[in-house]
């Protein structure tokens, strides 16, 4: 059990580190258009040519054919690790131009093919993940901090405070948030910078999402508060702060972690949904949602399957998080019994 949790956490760490270092992992800029390579299929990695087998993989260039693309086998481009490419800001701080892998120009290595503008889909998935996953994590933090604080207050103090907070959670839970957001967007200025859009998105998702964790935490606090050892502590004159710190917070913590692992994929999906409907990050910046919105067109969906890559990335991330939540939950249960 412990190994599984550690493996999952390790996998998530690798995933997030990859997204964090998007500039390094992605071979190309996510917004660079190659107008000669629109809807090019994924580049095939070759190990064998007419001279025999090679250890180092190589790729061929795509050549436009009457019905799509064919490989131009006249010249092979070897794939190498740690190559110099276009420059980017590493971690948004310092300039760098080193990439994890790449090939020599004019050869191109397009792992997931290209979109309608000839932009490298793999680079876009990596950069898009930055936005989508960060939105999920930040929104979760907002929701959990807000939710657990209010939930604890409501559960601990009870009475009218409890009623007020629980009334508010009901209000927020009943809100049709997608329509609510569509309405909110109509009042905002036409153009929002990507940073502001991102901020707005996460805030809105987090602010709407606090209600569920608040209810959970309140229920927990209510039950912990009436346990004998807590009652005993209060009887011996422990202050509220002491009780919360010593008895309630540790109990709640595990639940909060499980909640976080559950909420993050949900909120990533929320960002994807919003961007899908054009409410999130706008062109040319990628996010998994606005990339997937291309697939709304029947012709794209049926002709260019590789554009489903962001859905795959979303699936992998979500499943890993859910498995982690599951592992954490079982650990919590085994500890409490």
């Amino acid at each position, binding site marked *: 059990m412990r190994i599984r949790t550690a493996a999952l956490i390790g996998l998530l760490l690798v995933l997030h580190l990859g997204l964090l270092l998007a500039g390094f992992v992605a071979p190309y800029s996510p*917004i660079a*258009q190659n*107008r000669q390579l*629109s809807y090019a299929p994924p580049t095939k990695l070759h190990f064998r040519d007419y001279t025999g087998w090679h250890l180092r993989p190589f790729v061929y260039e795509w050549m436009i054919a009457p*019905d799509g693309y064919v490989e131009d086998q006249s010249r092979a481009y070897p794939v190498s690790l740690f190559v110099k490419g276009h420059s980017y800001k590493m971690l948004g701080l310092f300039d760098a131009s080193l990439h994890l892998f790449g090939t020599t120009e004019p050869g191109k290595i397009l792992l997931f093919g290209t979109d*309608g*503008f*000839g932009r490298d889909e793999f680079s876009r998935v990596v950069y898009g993940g930055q936005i989508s996953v960060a939105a999920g994590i930040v929104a979760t933090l907002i929701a959990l901090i807000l939710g657990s604080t209010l939930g604890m207050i409501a559960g601990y103090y009870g009475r009218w405070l409890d009623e007020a907070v629980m009334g508010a959670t009901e209000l927020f839970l009943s809100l049709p948030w997608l329509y609510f957001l569509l309405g909110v967007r*109509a009042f905002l200025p*036409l*153009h929002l910078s990507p940073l502001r859009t991102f901020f707005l998105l996460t805030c809105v998702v987090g602010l709407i999402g606090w209600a569920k964790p608040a209810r959970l935490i309140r229920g927990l606090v209510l039950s912990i508060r009436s346990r004998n050892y807590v009652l005993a502590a209060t009887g011996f004159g422990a202050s509220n702060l002491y009780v919360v710190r010593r008895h309630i917070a540790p109990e709640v913590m595990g639940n909060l972690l499980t909640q976080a692992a559950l909420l993050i994929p949900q909120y990533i999906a929320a960002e994807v949904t919003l961007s899908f409907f*054009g409410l999130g990050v*706008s*062109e*040319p910046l990628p996010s998994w949602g606005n990339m997937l919105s291309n697939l709304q*067109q*029947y*012709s*794209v969906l*049926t*002709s260019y399957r590789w554009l489903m890559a962001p859905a795959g990335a979303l699936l992998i991330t979500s499943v890993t998080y859910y498995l982690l939540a599951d592992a954490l939950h079982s650990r919590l249960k085994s500890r409490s019994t």
Partner: protein
Amino acid sequence: MKRITHLTLLVCLLAGVCISGSSTTKPSVAGEEVQRMAALSGRSGGHLVIGQRAEPKTLNPVTATDAISREVSGRLMADLIEINRVTQQTEPALAKSWKVSTDGRTFTLQLRKGIRFSDGHPFDADDVVFSFKVYMDEEVGSPQRDLLIIDGNPITVTKLDQYTVRFTLARPYAAAERLFDGLAMLPKHLLEKPYREGRLAQTWPLNIAPAEIAGLGPFRLKEYLPGQRIVLERNPYYWKIDRDNQRLPYLDELVFLFVGSEDAQVMRFEAGETQVISRLSSDNYKLLSRNQERTRSQLVDMGPSLEYNFLVFNQNDLTSKKLDAIAHKQAWFRDIRFRQAVSAAVDRESIVRLVYGTRGAALWGNVGPGNKLWVNQGIAHPKRSLDSARQLLKSAGFSWNRTGELTDAAGQVVEFSIITSSSNTQRMKMATLLQEDLSQLGMQVHVVPLEFRAMIGRVFQSLDYEAAIMGLGGGDADPNPEMNVWTANGTSRLWNLNPSHPANGWEREIDELMQKQMVTLDYTKRKQLYDRVQQLIAENLPFIFLATPNILAGADAKVGNFRPAVLEPSTLWNADELYVRTPNAESAGAR
């Protein structure tokens, strides 16, 4: 709201059924002056199903503004004179002939004798006079009204005898007979009462009982199922016969299925549930042609349409609007060198390739290669040149800062947003390409997709936008419908809707030329005037023209006489001639 109507009108001006081929009129069936289509043959019977993106809003041809309503109601109705969609020339319809006086102001139309509405009631000059009264009545609010008011004077319609009508215009009007296309003749016996009671605009909704609606078109209403379909059946009184004296239309029924979206239209067509599809995007055309063998369909690429897609900068007078941020940027937009630089930086070839999959044409003016009669071949087609764009910007006082951003003389970074309709994937793509093109000049361009109505509201009413990508045209090939866009009081003069200050040189010249061509009757002289207009537009770039899509349509292989056209409605204009081939005729493969 009115302006929106005008725009829609311009885009979908033409609906109606036309005739084709050489035709002679002779009284045949019981004193009826039917029209004989000497070259036409087909097989009677069967039905065709057509997928529609949405339900029509009304069956009333007087108030129908959207393309879908006009496509359906046009099958029920007929006009006095019609434009043949293939030859783009006028041809007799309900009027078997017409005479124009030498001063070009009087039109005398001879109506067909003895023909009947789809309910069996006879049609004569009273119906014509009544119809024009309705179209010109301001209370009714028909979008066709503007076309019939020339210089503020409505056209006078006089009945000379039961089958002769005279139209008198306040002044000569070029190609005035083209106006009659799209003006469906209404049954006075059914509509006079609602008209007198002021209810005409509300009559003939979709759920009208079939007995209460009648027209002179090839079909009549059979049933309407809300949210599902509308079924039209053969009009037994239709006034056309074919080579073998068989009365048209060939089809027993025409079914319009409401499917919801373009994609759904394509899927239904692929599955064989519908037999005719029009307004195909190049992507879907490609998809269908890949499966052509399996779906057994005939697909037609008609070449460039008459629509023009363009980028427009907001040059409206905003002093009363409290839009200071935009007003400040208008100094750039009003500088012709700025607009020329933008135009020079646009990669039109990429737009045609990436947006239309090469099934389209690049544009440098408002008249594209699809309009062979009127296009000015002398307009230059300069290649994309970032160098000349930079030169132009430099000469206009722009410069580049250390990070490569373009700044104006006051040091403000050139940054603007382009709004476009989020439902139009093609214009969205154009916007993204433009964004990249212009970023190479150091301009920061943001693309803002808006819901169609919201975008129209900004462009026509609130004027709260900086630049927009839109499309116009696509109606008639004639220059007259373009009056709305280029004259000083035009309602679709998008770059500056209400010029309060006296228009500058070229704007005034365009205005004068457009007014002049409207009263010039000779084609060659008109063409000269309109050539000059096109040249002025291309030089001064009130719009930055981008590209036009090809007209793409398809039908099941067993649909006969399928002859799509560039003019709207591209596939159903000859619905009366369409027929379903028998299984053995199908293998012959004749189109």
